[in-house]
């Protein structure tokens, strides 16, 4: 276990280093990437641009620039080129919003997908199964920006059942927090519900034919106990892996569209705006943030996997 964690930490450092190098240098080579020109405003004088270059260190060797930028990342004093605001403050502000969205949606999609998948498998080939299959395929096909916009317009604006975007802090009012998040959670979860319930359905159908399920039946166990203790537990192993990875991906940027549609101002929305303005420091910071969560969740998934399936030992 100790060795496993050390190895994963090393892996994380390597991944984040590679990600930072790639992100940084991509913004050096893309056209219209010179930040000094943009910072100088409309129709600047050459001297102004030069001054900004000198002040921000854009004249330095690219590698030196990378080094100083990364130093700022670790010291937490990275400044946005566009807004001139500290990047760290924005991320700290956006983090609880992004995590609230991701956590809620992940729990929602897992729960609903288990219900749908299990029910579908138990009714395999019958009407209910086919109906849920169609629903799942529709869910998978709906882009989140479209369904999100529709929900926001009809349920939020026209009917007024839900608030029209925005975020309330959990510590301030948990009920209002959830109330504001219901639509974003649903919009984000729909895609995953469709996908997960399909995967779970096929896993359950595979597991149902296993010899140990027949043994469970021969013991005289009830159908519910057989399904939950013997079938579901074994069918869930691959799903939990998927879940961890998807959760990491959602925190690390998968929720960009949802956050933007519902104006949650989380980290994803911040990243999206930064990319639109070719604002390197926030892009770099949010990319590292994303990489961090994805690698972290990968490690957590591996640990959870070993817990769920005792045949797997971490080494």
């Amino acid at each position, binding site marked *: 276990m100790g060795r496993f964690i050390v190895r994963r930490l090393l892996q994380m450092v390597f991944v984040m280093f590679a990600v930072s190098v790639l992100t940084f240098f991509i913004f050096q080579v893309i056209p219209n990437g010179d930040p000094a020109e943009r910072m100088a405003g409309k129709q600047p004088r050459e001297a102004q641009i030069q001054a900004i270059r000198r002040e921000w260190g854009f004249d330095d060797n690219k590698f030196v620039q990378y080094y100083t930028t990364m130093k700022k990342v670790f010291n937490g004093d990275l400044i946005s080129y566009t807004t001139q605001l500290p990047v760290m403050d924005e991320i700290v502000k956006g983090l609880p919003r992004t995590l609230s969205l991701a956590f809620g949606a992940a729990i929602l999609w897992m729960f609903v997908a288990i219900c749908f998948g299990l029910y579908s498998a138990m009714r395999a080939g019958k009407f209910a199964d086919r109906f849920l299959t169609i629903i799942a395929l529709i869910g998978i096909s709906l882009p989140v920006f479209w369904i999100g916009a529709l929900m926001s317009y009809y349920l939020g604006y026209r009917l007024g059942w839900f608030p029209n975007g925005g975020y309330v802090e959990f510590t301030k009012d948990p009920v209002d927090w959830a109330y504001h998040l219901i639509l974003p959670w649903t919009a984000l979860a729909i895609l995953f519900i469709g996908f997960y319930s399909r995967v779970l359905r096929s896993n359950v159908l595979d597991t149902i034919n296993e010899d*140990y399920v027949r*043994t469970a039946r*021969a*013991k*005289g166990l009830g159908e519910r106990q057989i399904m939950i203790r*013997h079938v579901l537990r*074994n069918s869930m192993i691959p799903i939990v892996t998927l879940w961890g990875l998807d959760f990491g991906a959602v925190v690390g940027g998968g929720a960009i569209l949802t956050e933007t549609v519902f104006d949650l101002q989380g980290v994803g929305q911040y990243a999206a705006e930064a990319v639109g303005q070719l604002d390197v420091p926030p892009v770099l910071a949010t990319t590292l943030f994303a990489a961090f969560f994805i690698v972290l969740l990968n490690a957590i998934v591996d640990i959870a996997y070993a817990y*769920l399936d*005792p045949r797997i030992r971490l080494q």
Partner: protein
Amino acid sequence: MSVSPVPTGDPLLTVEDLRVSFATEEGVVQAGKSVTAMTLMGLSRSPNARFEGTAHYKGTELINASEDELRRIRGAEIAMIFQDPMTSLNPVMKIGAQIVEQIQEHEALPDQQARERAIELLEKVGIPRARERIDNYPFEFSGGMRQRVMIALALSCNPSVLIADEPTTALDVTIQAQILLRMRELRDETGAAIVLVTHDLGVVADIADRIAVMYAGRIVEHGTLDEIFYDPQHPYTWGLLGSIARIDRPRPERLPAIAGLPPSLANRPEGCHFRPRCPHEFSKCSEVPPLEARLEGNADHTDRCWLTPEQKKELREVRPGEIGLPDKQTGVNAA
């Protein structure tokens, strides 16, 4: 050999004219042993399965029983040991939990007592350090040990009938002997009747009191161990006995076998199913012979062959003192 006297009184479990067919099953070669065993516990039920005939356990009809009725019987009254111990235990549950689960399904025992019972059971089937091993997972056991766990599981509610579906097929011979010995001892200890499904006559000779020989879904002969081994009436039984490789005889060129293949279940021959492979076939064989006693003064020994007992006595002796079946085409003796 432990041949206890055939028990008298009302039979515990009776099966009559049981026939199971599956709509989609085609061309599968099998005698129907396992399917019959599973059907008794309602484990072969599926939308494609059709059942004919009856089976009774202590007066309860099993074939058409409701799931709820069956659930009360399964595990508690009739328990089952399956063929492959490697896949028959849930890989992600501790073996103790799997045994406790069954005990608590049928008896209202608190956790601690159920656990103690599970430990006792594991000790009884010969698992060393049962108190520690109870918290191990199936993958931490060898095949033979897993089959012992399966037996402990099956015995956990003191069933009256234990159906063992080829319990030693997946094990090597040494382990096989140990498991059979243990099963025999447990049978004598607990008084449970064992229904053993197997194609291994060595195993049968070791443990059985009564034997039913099945061919292509039908029982072709039924009698006591001695009757089947020393006075077999059906040519298929002769063939089975003739194809045992014997260590006390000179080694034959080829292992004796019954020529031909079992029929596919989709198109079994009219009349006696064994007819196409039987060298003693004659005109009457196109009619299905009923399973009935044909020997004078022994109503218990039944078979499905039209030959007279005198003909059988003569035909089955392929060499002096040796039972067997000549090849239908070549006439070469299988024994």
